[in-house]
């Protein structure tokens, strides 16, 4: 279909994502990336070399058929491209926006060896948005009802994926969610300016249209236990996808001061509770206008928190990270956007104490400088404190984004569910089966904080084995 020669293809520059200007976007919560137009998307698609050996597919955790869907864009059949995408990826509008493409599909793309890799994420987002805009989401056919009931605990990407896969196979699917909104981190963690809530809602509505039931305000382990789901509510299988939502603090002095937040709280107030629209919405947040805000950490969560603080009017937004920019686990695009918006990176530093203004409010942090030593088990060079290098920085708000761990609510109320040393749910990696018959688990509650697409991949795998279990009855 693509009539261009390889030489002509590589001459086309990688298309730029149209985005809001940094000056204006740091004052609003609208999405930063505006999306490709049809013509730009087609031009970008023409760059693909249609390799025989599709590295791009291998490096996508769910094996999206990149070459095939891109060729359908070249052919101009966007809806077919979207359908092709949905064969492997049920939430393309989301992954196209938030996958760390540079480490995955685009990291594998051959073009990247000499030129810039194909903008696979942009194209993925494009086909999903196009499909939604023309209002023709290709909802899959449902198999005849099987009479089997599946409960899904947690409505993040892992849970939603399993819900989508199993409803198609004719099972009755109920998703239980502790919060009042569906979507997990996609709605309470990742901000509007990166992933508009409407997009998550669109996907959830698609699932509803297929017949998935959603029950919010149910904390499994508290409101109902896993055993009760089986014994009293007649479920035949349960998929646990409760994420890794427990915030880690740094256990340094002053963490209880007013003005010190966990990233989860800071982001939940803004995203889930819409504190950025206080007092129209009731939940408040520390008034960041004109204030000095620091976020500690270097991942996507840290980036989201610091960029949020700028949008809330912070005068200075510092990102304090103990390694260097090169080691930051955040998506490259987010780091770029953050810098454009004026986030000040303070690399090779870490707070050792939060300082009290005398009446219980934060006035600053005492930090220490770091040096990179030998690599640790993650392969990244270990930060080592430099003795005598302590310094103080004036702050009004500090947000701790140094990671999360497993929430124990389900595990502690399900005695025969085995956990790992760190409290995550132990599963057979091939089948996502837990130690308890009928119970499967996947996503961050198994791996620890990872990515949207890995959670979806785990969901996909689990759905396959749940299907097998439900049809054969063999554990």
């Amino acid at each position, binding site marked *: 279909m693509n009539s261009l020669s390889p030489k002509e293809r590589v001459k086309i520059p990688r298309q730029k994502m149209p985005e809001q200007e940094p000056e204006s976007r740091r004052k609003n919560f609208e999405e930063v990336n505006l999306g490709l137009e049809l013509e730009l998307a087609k031009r970008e698609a023409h760059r693909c070399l249609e390799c025989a050996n599709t590295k791009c597919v291998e490096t996508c955790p769910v094996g999206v058929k990149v070459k095939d869907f891109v060729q359908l864009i070249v052919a101009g059949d966007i809806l077919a491209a979207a359908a092709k995408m949905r064969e492997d990826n049920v939430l393309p509008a989301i992954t196209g926006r938030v996958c760390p493409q540079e480490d995955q599909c685009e990291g594998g793309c051959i073009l990247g060896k000499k030129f810039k890799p194909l903008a696979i994420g942009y194209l993925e987002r494009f086909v999903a948005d196009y499909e939604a805009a023309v209002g023709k989401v290709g909802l899959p056919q449902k198999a005849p009802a099987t009479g089997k009931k599946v409960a899904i605990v947690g409505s993040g990407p892992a849970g939603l994926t399993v819900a989508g896969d199993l409803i198609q196979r004719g099972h009755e699917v109920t998703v239980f969610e502790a919060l*009042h909104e569906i979507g997990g981190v996609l709605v309470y963690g990742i901000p509007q300016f990166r992933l508009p809530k409407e997009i998550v809602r669109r996907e959830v509505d698609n699932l509803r249209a297929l017949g998935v039931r959603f029950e919010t305000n149910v904390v499994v382990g508290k*409101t109902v236990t896993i055993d009760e789901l089986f014994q009293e509510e007649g479920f035949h299988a349960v998929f646990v996808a409760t994420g890794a*939502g427990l915030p880690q603090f740094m256990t340094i002095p002053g963490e209880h001061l*007013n003005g010190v937040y966990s990233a989860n709280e800071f982001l*939940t107030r803004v995203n889930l509770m819409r504190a950025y629209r206080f007092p129209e919405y009731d939940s408040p947040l520390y008034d960041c206008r004109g204030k000095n805000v620091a976020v500690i950490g270097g991942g996507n969560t840290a980036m989201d928190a610091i960029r949020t603080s700028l949008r809330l009017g912070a005068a200075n937004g510092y990102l304090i990270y103990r390694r260097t920019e090169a080691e930051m686990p955040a998506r490259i695009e987010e780091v770029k956007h953050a810098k454009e918006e004026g986030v000040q990176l303070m690399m090779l530093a870490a707070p050792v104490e939060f300082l009290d203004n005398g*009446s219980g409010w934060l006035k600053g942090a005492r930090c220490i400088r770091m040096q990179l030593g030998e690599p640790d088990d993650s392969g990244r060079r270990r930060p080592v404190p430099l003795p005598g290098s302590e310094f103080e920085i004036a702050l009004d708000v500090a947000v701790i984004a140094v990671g999360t761990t497993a929430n124990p609510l389900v595990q502690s109320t399900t005695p025969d569910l085995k956990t790992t040393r760190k409290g995550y749910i132990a599963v057979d990696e091939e089948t996502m089966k837990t130690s308890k018959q009928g119970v499967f688990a996947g996503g961050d509650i198994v791996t620890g904080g990872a990515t949207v697409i890995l959670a979806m991949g785990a969901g996909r795998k689990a759905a396959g084995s749940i299907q097998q279990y439900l049809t054969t009855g063999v554990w």
Partner: protein
Amino acid sequence: MFSIIEAQFVAPDVKKFRIVAPRIARKRKAGHFVLVRVHPKGERVPLTIADSDPAAGTITLFVQGIGKTTRLMNLLETGDYVSDVVGPLGKASEIAFYGTVVVIGGGVGTAIAFPTSVAMKQAGNHVISIIGARNRDLVILESEISAISDEVILTTDDGSYGRKGLVIDPLKELIEAGRKVDLVLAIGPIPMMRAVAEVTRPYGIKTIVSLNSIMIDGTGMCGGCRVVVADKTQFACVDGPEFDAHLVNFDVLRQRNSLYREAERLSLDKFQQDPSADLACAKEMCRLQNL
């Protein structure tokens, strides 16, 4: 949506609600609480489950109108709805036979302590209830508490009913008179709980308080409810809300509860100037919008 099947004032500014929430009613134990979001623009506020009826599928709450959300809630009537109710959250009270248990409730704390008093009585304890209020009109649940207590002492700040003075006065007298007190449970405003802790501390009487920190999710996810107990950070929503009073750092609790004072005042002023928008939102409008 959760249906309110009964709403009535039991004192000025304190309203009793019965809400249909069958899953919660079935699982709830004394000491548990729920988080309620009145309407889609509302915040999530913790309220103790004062009672439940598993057969009818209802839970009972007592709400004291102090700020925007609780005052808005107290405008709701039988037949209205609230958007969200989630629970039962927190650790249940540790109910056991201790011997003599003194349960002290200050203000709406009386309602919060009530279910635990009932359970303590059922566990065979001799229950002495001390009910404190600012004045006669604010005394709640007197007959219910009298029915389940072995002894009841009432105090009001102004002496308009019962004894004049603070709840700690009769407590001190009991202890000084040599009554054997095995456990004290105190629920109410922070200064009251702290004062009770100081009364019992020298005698080494085990004392439990219920901490009212600011919450969002109630599941351990945000860390906003953190309190300092025995010099360690604990999450009131999952590790509490009841803690050993002698180990609680009340200064940190008081300070953290003042975090949003400005915003709370702004919110309340705006609401009191014109409660109609919020009320409409609670009653129907917002429900129709898919927010």
